[in-house]
């Protein structure tokens, strides 16, 4: 965390569009606290001095109470607390409502590291690179226990819960390197489960993306799998050996299946055809394609889908409009789909296999 000054830091840097909202609320509350504390402390001290016992066992004045005062100091705190509530609610609503045009990033927490994956395929561990001025939405889950993705400079955090997705969004305003902490106790190395968020100028971010860790773009990776590693080309590459359906220029079009149904070729369909080829067979073809379930990882599926789309001239990254999120697209934190259905989400753990051997 970069702090400009001092020997003793008081505030973290403000590095997101929401940071000053939160700080404003904080200052407001401090002012209210001071406004209540000073009169009470002054009164207590003043009374203590002025009304100390002068004669042994002398009694104080006979005052029982005052309805006016009671009403006053019930009503005033109530009104003030309502202003605090409203201010807080407005800021909160903004904080947890990710905008639709946000850049997607996927995060998986596990004991004791953060695994981050960008839509374009780049993967990071315990780090997150984002461009300044772009809205970023994190879709998060965990493989094992509760964790919490916390970035104090952005003034935001959210728990990650096993079995469901939670969300976080921010728009960074200032390039820099900011602390990332895990803020929900998760066991042995909870204190060490952190890292940094790097906010970069757009140009630097693009450079970073290009020279990224994974090396290949998804499309290149997909071609590699298609032609070499998985042997799809042996049936789908065209030529006399073609036994599988043609894959060029089919994306987005409707095709007819055995049994008469028609289906639109989208990411979901492509993915299902690789994992469960017998379910939706193109008319005129035999049910002879083997399933690749268990032989491809989610990232590889993503790459294959990207490659196959590129055969139709479609080169935007996989996922996007076809996510089958049940529930809301604006992603209120809270309930959304649990893990079972995810079609095109690259980071969806396919099963919760993370339970270690339990001890009593």
């Amino acid at each position, binding site marked *: 965390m970069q702090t400009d000054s001092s020997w003793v830091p008081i505030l973290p840097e403000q590095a997101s569009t929401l940071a000053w909202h939160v700080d404003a609320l904080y200052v407001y509350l401090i002012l209210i606290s001071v406004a209540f504390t000073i009169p009470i402390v002054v009164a207590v001290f003043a009374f203590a001095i002025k009304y100390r016992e002068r004669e042994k066992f002398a009694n104080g004045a006979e005052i029982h109470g005052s309805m006016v005062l009671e009403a006053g100091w019930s009503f005033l705190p109530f009104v003030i607390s309502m202003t605090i509530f409203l201010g807080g609610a407005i800021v909160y609503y903004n904080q947890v409502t990710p905008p639709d045009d946000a850049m997607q990033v996927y995060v998986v927490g596990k004991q004791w590291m953060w695994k981050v994956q960008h839509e374009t395929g780049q993967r990071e561990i315990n780090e997150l690179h984002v461009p300044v001025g772009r809205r970023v939405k994190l879709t998060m889950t965990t493989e094992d226990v509760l964790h919490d993705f916390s970035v104090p400079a952005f003034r935001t955090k959210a728990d990650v819960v096993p079995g469901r997705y939670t969300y976080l969004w921010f728009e960074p305003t200032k390039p820099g390197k900011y602390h990332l902490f895990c803020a929900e106790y998760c066991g042995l190395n909870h204190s060490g489960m952190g890292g940094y968020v790097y906010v970069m100028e757009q140009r630097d971010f693009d450079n970073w993306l290009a020279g990224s860790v994974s090396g290949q773009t998804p499309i290149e990776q997909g071609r590699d799998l298609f032609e070499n590693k998985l042997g799809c080309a042996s049936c789908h590459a065209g030529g006399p050996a073609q036994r599988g359906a043609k894959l060029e220029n089919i994306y987005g079009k409707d095709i007819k299946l055995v049994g008469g149904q028609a289906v639109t070729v989208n990411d979901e369909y492509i993915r*299902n055809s690789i*994992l*469960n080829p017998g379910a939706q067979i193109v008319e005129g073809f035999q049910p002879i394609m083997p399933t690749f379930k268990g032989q491809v990882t989610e990232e590889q599926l993503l790459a294959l889908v990207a490659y196959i789309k590129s055969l139709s001239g479609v080169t935007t990254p996989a996922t996007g409009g076809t996510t089958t999120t*049940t*529930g809301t697209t604006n992603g209120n934190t809270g*309930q959304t*789909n*649990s*893990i*079972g*259905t995810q079609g095109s989400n690259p980071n969806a753990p396919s*099963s919760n296999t993370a339970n270690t051997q339990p001890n009593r």
Partner: protein
Amino acid sequence: MASHAENGKFHYHEPGLQHQFEDMGQQEESVSIGMWVFLVQEIMFFGGLFTAYLVFRSRFPLAFAEGSNHLDAFWGGLNTLVLIVSSLTMALTVYYAQRGNRNMQVIMILLTMAFGATFLGVKVIEYTDKYNSGLIPVTGWNKRANEAQPAVEERAGAVMPWETAVAAAESGSEKKKPYINPHGEFQWNYGRHVYDYAIEKEKSGKPYLTESERVGYFSNGVFDPNKYRDKIRIFYFIYFVMTGLHALHMIVGLGLMAWLLFVAWRGDFSALYYAPVEMSGLYWHFVDIVWIFLFPLLYLLGRHFLH
């Protein structure tokens, strides 16, 4: 009539009066408020379990109905009847205690205890059936049957004419199906009638699955019997914890009755002093009422699906 010397003064007090009280009225009032407060906290204790039930049933109603259908409503109903009658005998115990009728008190307490024991006996029958059918949610706690020598199990409970079609069909098919459970795991071999019924209804346009169910029963878009079984296992977990806790309270109740029997036999109770009987009665009625709630929530789900 009790009197004794205290600091050289003679001191009369009513029989059974504790020394911190001024008179019997104060003692009775105190004991009564105390017992009611105790019962209120017992309600909160069971309340946590009812909350868990509420949450999971609203998320997975089909699995709950499926699991509930396999519970034997006959035995459950019999237990309900038994407890209601035992509450009657308990109330009569209080009645006779107020009249100082020692013999009738003792008879009524013995009857109450008999009904309580019957209740527990029926629970043993039910739990044994679950053990034999692989329905205890904990791995290793069910009957194991070697794959090499599968045991063919008869259903332990009687099949009554008013049983559901599901149960009757099951019991028929079960006699043919071998029971194989080498690890003593929770098994669900009883099909998915309720689920199938719901899917039929869905096809005709009525949405029958909850959001959680649309996700929770499926893997990769296909119905996953293991995930369905997991939800049914949650039902059985809640069933066992709730009825187990209730049975524990029943055992405590029987202990209380045994003590009461001893004191009633001594002839201690009369119009002047019968609060212990009344308080024990309150506890017994409470245990009864908890069962009245448990029975329909656990045993009677899903019957409307099939009619």
